C-alpha cells in the first residue's frame, strides 16, 4: 500500500466528489454549482438504499400498529390492508387479560433491584483493579476475561439456586443478575488522575468515602452506560424467568408476553396490541437515552 501524507495545511480543491461526501451543509452552500449527472445518480442510489433500510426496519412495527388497531372481524376480512377502524379495544383487552400491570411492576423490580447493587459492587471492584491498589490486580483482571470464555453456567446455577431454596423466589432471580463485567469501568477509571487520590488521602479522606463521593461522580458517564445496558439486559431476559420463576404472579413482561402468545393462539389483533404494550416502554427509553446506547455499544467493543 503506497500512501503519501499531505501536510494538513494543503487544502484540497472542491471536487464534486467532496460535495457528496462532506454532507448536507456544504452541499447546500454550494448549490449553485450543478452536480454532474453521475453524482446525481449516486446520490439517488444512496438515498434509495437509506429508504430501503428504513422500510426493512420500520415495517414490522408499522404492520403491528396497523393490525393492533383493527377489530378482529376487520382483520380476517383484510389482514394486510390499512386499518379502517382505530379501536383501542385490543389494547384494553390485552392489558386486562394479560395482567401486564403486574408484569411491568415485576420487570421494574428485577431490573432496578439487581442493577443498583451490581453498580456498587462493580465500582468497588473496578477501582482497586484500575489503580493496582490490591495485590495481583492483573491476575484479577485476567480472571474476569477468562470467565467470559468458560462454558455456560446455566445448569449449575439452576442446581445452586434450587438447593439454596431460592427456586421460584423473586430474590433468587435477582441475585443471579448481581454482578457485571467491570472492563468498561476499569478502562474508564484509568483516565481519572492519580493525583486526586493522593490529594484526597493527604486531606484525610478515607478510602470508601473517596470511592463513593469522588470517584463515582467522576466515572458517572460510564456507570450510567453500564447501568443502562444491565437494566435492559434484565428487562429483556426471557430464559431466566422461564427457568427460575414458575409462579405467574412473579412473571416479568417478557415471560408474560410469551405466555400470552401461548394462550391466545391466533388472535392476531390482541397479540399485536400486547406486543406493542411490551415494546412501548423500551421504545420510549431508547428514544430518551439513545446517546448512551449508541456510545456504549461503540465503546464496548473497542475497549
Amino acid at each position: 500500500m503506497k500512501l503519501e501524507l499531505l501536510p494538513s495545511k494543503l487544502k484540497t480543491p472542491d471536487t464534486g466528489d467532496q460535495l457528496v461526501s462532506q454532507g448536507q451543509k456544504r452541499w447546500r452552500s454550494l448549490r449553485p454549482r450543478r452536480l454532474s449527472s453521475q453524482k446525481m445518480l449516486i446520490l439517488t442510489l444512496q438515498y434509495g438504499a437509506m429508504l430501503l433500510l428504513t422500510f426493512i426496519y420500520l415495517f414490522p412495527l408499522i404492520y403491528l400498529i396497523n393490525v393492533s388497531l383493527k377489530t378482529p372481524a376487520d382483520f380476517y376480512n383484510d389482514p394486510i390492508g390499512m386499518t379502517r377502524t382505530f379501536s383501542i379495544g385490543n389494547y384494553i383487552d390485552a392489558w386486562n387479560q394479560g395482567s401486564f400491570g403486574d408484569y411491568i411492576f415485576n420487570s421494574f423490580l428485577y431490573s432496578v433491584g439487581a442493577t443498583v447493587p451490581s453498580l456498587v459492587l462493580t465500582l468497588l471492584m473496578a477501582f482497586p483493579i484500575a489503580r493496582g491498589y490490591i495485590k495481583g490486580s492483573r491476575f484479577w483482571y485476567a480472571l474476569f476475561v477468562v470467565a467470559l470464555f468458560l462454558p455456560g453456567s446455566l445448569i449449575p446455577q439452576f442446581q445452586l439456586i434450587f438447593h439454596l431454596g431460592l427456586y421460584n423466589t423473586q430474590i433468587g432471580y435477582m441475585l443471579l443478575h448481581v454482578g457485571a463485567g467491570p472492563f468498561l469501568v476499569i478502562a474508564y477509571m484509568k483516565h481519572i488522575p492519580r493525583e486526586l487520590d493522593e490529594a484526597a488521602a493527604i486531606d484525610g479522606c478515607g478510602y470508601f468515602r473517596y470511592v463513593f463521593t469522588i470517584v463515582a461522580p467522576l466515572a458517572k458517564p460510564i456507570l450510567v452506560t453500564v447501568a443502562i445496558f444491565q437494566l435492559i439486559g434484565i428487562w429483556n431476559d426471557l430464559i431466566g424467568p422461564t427457568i427460575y420463576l414458575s409462579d405467574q404472579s412473579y412473571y416479568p413482561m417478557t415471560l408474560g408476553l410469551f405466555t400470552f402468545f401461548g394462550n391466545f393462539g391466533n388472535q392476531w389483533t390482541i397479540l399485536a396490541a400486547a406486543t406493542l404494550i411490551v415494546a412501548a416502554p423500551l421504545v420510549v427509553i431508547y428514544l430518551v437515552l439513545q446517546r448512551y446506547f449508541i456510545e456504549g455499544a461503540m465503546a464496548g467493543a473497542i475497549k
Partner: protein
Amino acid sequence: MNVFGRRGFSVAAPYLGMLPGLFFFALFGIGPSLATIVLSFTDITGVPNTPWHFVSLDNYYRFFALSNWRDSAETLQRTFLFSGVSTIAQNSIALGAALLLNKRLKGHLALRGLIFMPVVLGVTVIGLMWSIVLNPIGGPVSTLLAALGHDSTLLGSYKDAFPLVIMVNIWAYIGTAMLIYLAGLQGIPSELLEAASIDGASGWGKFRHITWPLLTPMVTINVMLSVIGSLKDYQIIYVLTNGANNTSVLALQVFNSAFSGSQQQGYASALSVLQFLMVLIIALLLLAFLRSREVKL
C-alpha cells in the same frame, strides 16, 4: 501502592470493598461455569430429590453414538449454518450500512438509531413481532410470497422455517456491528482520503486501498463477536419455533435437554462443554486468520 495508608484498615479497605463483588462472581459466575464440567460426568436431572451418580464419559458417548449421530450431525450442521450465514450477512450488510451512513446524508442519525433499535427491544419482542409478521394465514410475507407463486406456512414449514429464523437473527443484530464499523470509519484520517482524491483515486480505489485496510481491526472484532455470539445463541430460535421444523441448534439443545421433558442436566452439561470446545477452537483459528490480515497504520 495504596495511597490511603500503609497500616491497618486503610490497607485492607480495597480488599474489603472487593469482597462482595468477588463473592457473587465466584458463586454465580466462574464457580458454576467450572461446575458445568463436573456435572457433565454425572446423570443429574432437574427433577428434585432424585439420586444422581458419576457416569464417566457416558454423556459424551451418547452424543457421538452411532444411533444418535445422525441427529447430532444435523444439529451441528445447522449450528454452523446458522452461525456462518448470520456472520457473513450481518457483517456485509452492517459494513454497507456504515459506509452509507458515514456519507452523512439527510436522516442518517435517525436511520442509525432505527437499525440499532432491535438490540434494545430484546429477543422476546423481536421474535413475537416477527411471528405476527410471518403469520402464514394472510400475513404480509405470506401474501407476498403467494403472489410470487410460493405457498408456504413460513415458520410452520419444514423447508422455510430455518432460513426465516436466520433472516430474523440477521435483522436483529446488524445494529451492533454497524455501530462498530461506523466508529472505525470515523477513525480513518480524512487527510488520507483527500490525498488519494488529489491523486485521482476513484471511489472504489479509495475503499480498496485505504478504507478497507484500515477497517480490518474492526472486521476482526465484528466477525469474532458475530461468530461467538451466534454459535452460543438460541433465544431467537426458542421464541420463533422452539426448534420445531428442523431449526434446532446445539445451544438450543443444551437448553431444552436441561429444562424441558426429563430435564437431563448431566447430558445437557456435556453438550455445553462440547459447545465450549467448539466455540474455543473456531474462535482461536479465526482470530489467528483475521489478525494475520490486519493492517496497522
